[in-house]
């Protein structure tokens, strides 16, 4: 057990925990943030994705120790931003949401991608989403959503 401090959804938090614990479990159990999902538990599906210093990481493969003094944003924190509003409207408009289990991760991946590359081409979008599995959509409408968000959010990223 050790004390660890980090920023979680714009608030500084401190918690006394085994630092080997998975960030995903700490978020879900200790902070009740259930937006990040467990789909595989081994870094393959991206359902557990969060932003660490504004880069996408799989929280199931991130030991708590890695977030010391860093900034974590989960879908809950991201969903109060203007960028989120643009992205979610794009997903709605194109039909990028089916069962929804991959969706929070996909939204985080979209943000991470657009933050680095506000005008991605199709190939760059596919690479940007390649760490996130979706079994329902076949990805096309999600790729459309990313394009739509980039267009509608011109200037935001």
């Amino acid at each position, binding site marked *: 057990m050790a004390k660890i401090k980090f920023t979680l959804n714009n608030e500084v938090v401190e918690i006394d925990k085994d630092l080997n614990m998975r960030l995903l479990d700490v978020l879900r159990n200790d902070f009740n943030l*259930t937006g990040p999902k*467990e789909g595989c538990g*081994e870094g393959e599906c991206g359902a557990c994705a969060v932003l660490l210093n504004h880069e996408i990481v799989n929280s199931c493969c991130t030991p708590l120790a890695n977030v010391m003094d860093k900034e974590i944003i989960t879908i809950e924190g991201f969903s109060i931003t203007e960028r989120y509003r643009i992205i979610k409207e794009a997903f709605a408009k194109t039909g990028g949401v089916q069962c929804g*289990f991959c969706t929070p991760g996909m939204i985080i991946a979209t943000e991470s991608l657009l933050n680095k590359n506000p005008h991605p081409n199709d190939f760059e979008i596919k690479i940007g989403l390649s760490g996130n599995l979706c079994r329902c959509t076949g990805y096309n*409408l999600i790729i459309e959503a990313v394009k739509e968000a980039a267009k509608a959010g011109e200037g935001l990223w």
Partner: protein
Amino acid sequence: MRDISTSINKVDNDEKTSGKAIYVADIKLDNMLYAFTVRSKIAKGKIIKIDYPELPLGYYIVDYKDIPGKNIVKVIFDDMPIFTEGDITYLYEPIALLIGPDKAVLSKLFAEVKIEYKEEEPVFAWKDSVIHYHFDKGLGKSALEEGKIIEYVYQTGYQEQAYIEPQGFIGYLETDKTTLIGSIQCPYYVKNAVIQALGAKDDEVRVIQAAVGGAFGGKEEFPSLMACQLAVALKKIKQPIQLVYEREEDMLVTTKRHPSRINFKASIKDNKINGLSVHVGIDGGATIGLSGVVLSRALIACTGAYAIDNLDVSGDVYKTNTVPNGAFRGFGAPQMFFAIEMFVEHIAMELGLDPLEFSKSILAKQGDYTSTMGVFRDPVLMPEMIEKALEVSDYNNKKTMFKKQQNLKGVGMSLFFHGCGFTGSGEKNIIKAKVRLKKQFDKVEILIAAVDMGQGVKTTFRKLVAHILEIDIDKVIFNNPDTDFVPDSGPTVASRTMMIVGGLVARATKEVKDRWNEGSFVVEKQYEQPDYIKYDESNFKGDAYPAYSWGVNVVEVEVDRFTYQVKVNKTWAFYDIGKAIDERIVIGQADGGLAQGLAYGYLEVMNHDKGKIMQKNMTDYIIPTAMDMCSMETYLYENPYAYGPYGAKGVGELSLIGGAPAVAKAIENAIGKKVFKIPVTPEYIMELMKNGKD
């Protein structure tokens, strides 16, 4: 008024994008315990002795001795125990639940469980037939006594549903009532199974659907097993318990698509198929469960999209000491359509005919008899769909050009249908679907057991009712089904939801409309089979389905010349689904189904070694990522079915069926060798390049 097909935003988008939707694993209850499943480590034998470690206070073992009712999971064929009583029939068969408050302690205890077995020789060969079916059409076998005979064998592998949310339940007791919240497709399957397991009364079991993170058939019958186990534990421990699988457990122990071996023999006269003999073998795994129904659907689809007068059709479900196989989107049809599509192509090649021209010359038309002497009653739009496919994909040109080119590019086309709803008289005799609408002031609540697992039921049903009543969609209420409130409208399976349940809801809504000024009231409707549908189950005679959805897929691939990796470059899909209740939702489902069908054909490899599934996670079992997918063009055709709401027929499964044969034919076109099995992996292509048939 706007056409109903015009898309609207899905009603549950916001809760899903924001992470607020509640899936099973997101639910936490006070004093909640966790359950781990103790499983066999052998594939066949008997348990001699189990040594459980000493359990700390608050930890429990629950096994068959705790079952108050029957130790059988009620499915269609009831042969799966809830917990084994000592006989082991497959690897990882459930023996007990280990339950307690701390997962770390549970893990430690779990590792200390010692089980002694008397091992027996497991059976993996397909020889032990537990279900055999046979039927004839026309002259049957005797039609194969003349003409040119062509014979081939086709094989298909396992496929895992790979929903991104693993299976799970959470349960608690409300005084005498056992309440289960689950990631499920069929609330009443679960409820009825639990009633039997507990020996409970109807009002002592309650099943509620949580948000479902994908299902694809995988959450049709398997959840009933977990629910029975959990319910037994709840009765004993009387504290809330969560039973959620991790990915590895889910991959190793849950039901999968039946592997199949399909033998075809055809007699050819005047360049037509005079008679067809087919045998379908499927691996049922250790229990029968739904295998018989899967086999029927495969057998009935044996003529593919074609009309063939003389048939000799048989099939067997083989029992093996492997994980039980079960429902998966398409339910026997994907196996058969792969095989028949390849066979018809291969027949044409042997006859020196153009495969597409040959296919077109034998296509089923309106009024033709089905394999079971039912009738294709509605117009068949396939010729028009094929014409469009040829035009937009430039198919003929590409096919000739690719054959000549050095690079391994190819194009393939598949023609297929899906029988909508349950096979045979299932709706009438077994399901007897019931729907209820509650009108209160200016609002209407839809009370049905249909589950939104991503396919958009919540949106399309609210839209349907709002559209008929000409009211705002916000005035129509639809909550996740809870068996304490909704009647049994049947399971969310078999592409039946919109056509059958939606049809009933539409009828009920019309009554609500007529009585709109009466204030608050309830309307109920029960399924009535259209008069003309008559089916004799035991002889496979009559109309096996009330309606058919049809499809054409064109797929273009490129095979790497050195690694033989397959890349799908583009797909074109054409579907006659009667009428889309929401176009964008249908297109989303169509994309997803085709992605699964394509991957079934070339990407998704699953096998077992001595009963052990070799792919235990998403690293070993490859499903498509965004990088694997290509652009997909979809065209929808209207062809209203009289009993479907606004003419809607089945949508969910159709789009999975044509992917595998289309991609397999495209690979054939690319490599110039005949393909006989799926998935068409690089290893298989290499083998074909060396020793394959031209």
